């Protein structure tokens, strides 16, 4: 859904680094290099980024509120 706050395995906070990761990778940077520069060393934490799909963005498209209702 949304990036988990912590790594499932070790408990390191990963959520605060997701946006930077996404930005750099969408620019075409090598994900391994981005993770290294973010200080994500263990593979338990690295898979949190590599395997994440931000589904909340899809979900939000179907949620309109108040005045906007009925636009979609």
């Amino acid at each position: 859904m949304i990036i988990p706050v912590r790594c499932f395995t070790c408990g390191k906070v990963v959520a605060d680094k997701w946006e930077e990761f996404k930005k750099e990778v969408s620019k075409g940077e090598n994900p391994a290099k981005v993770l290294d520069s973010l200080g994500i060393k263990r593979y338990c934490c690295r898979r949190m980024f590599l395997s994440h799909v931000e589904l909340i963005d899809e979900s939000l498209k179907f949620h309109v509120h108040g005045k906007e209702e009925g636009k979609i």
Partner: protein
Amino acid sequence: MDVEVLGTTNDQLRLLVREIEPTFMSAIRRIIMAEVPIPAIDKVYIAENTGVLYDEMLAHRLGLIPLKGGETLTLPEKCSCDKKGCNLCESVLTLEVEAKEDNSIVYSGRLKAEGSVFPANNEIPIVKLNSGQKVALVAHARLGLGKEHAKWQPVSACVVKYEPVISIDSKKCELRAVCVEECPKKILAVKGKNLAVTSIWDCSLCKVCEEVCPNSAIRVSYNDRNSELIVETTGSLSTEELVLAACEVLLHKCEDLKNSIKDLPEAS
């Protein structure tokens, strides 16, 4: 006992302790992980949540945000309120957001501290909201121990490791440097006419060098009299505070034991 700092960053401390039982260092490690009290959000009263995340998910995410402060709080188990929760053992944070734009992210920095406890990290996304969606809640943080729930565990990685010992037989070594190539931690190097270890504490004792050496010139072992304690904090307490707090907890335990023994009725 002899202590040396091998390296320290904002969130990590590498402490080398010489001439001590590894079991003792492990006791410190286990106390850091499970018995050093830190605050975390435990109860969330949601007044309004029109976003796409369910209340439960929201509460769960809030619980995992590392919090700082709360030095004056008491553990609920030791509080006069009998674990019900009062202003001596709980600290309140509030969150009230109405999104103005679509896809706006609500960060942990938006949590307003009403008491002594505040987020250790202001950049954690809590939820994403579309224009007009609202979240309004009151969260109660309390002290807790890692053995109760992982959100009260003040460290992500906390490890004790023995001192690696790499012995190189220079008579057998032909300097083919296969091990230099294969070592996953890249701690071996050829210096002049000798094979040398560049940073012994980075060795993970994987013994790949042993396996690839055609002459069996290299041996990996360890010395369990010296150990390294690696502490990686999640942000609630600094690594130094954590190690000291753990020692304090262990001292209290010993004190408790001592007192209970003193209180024993005289053996006949």
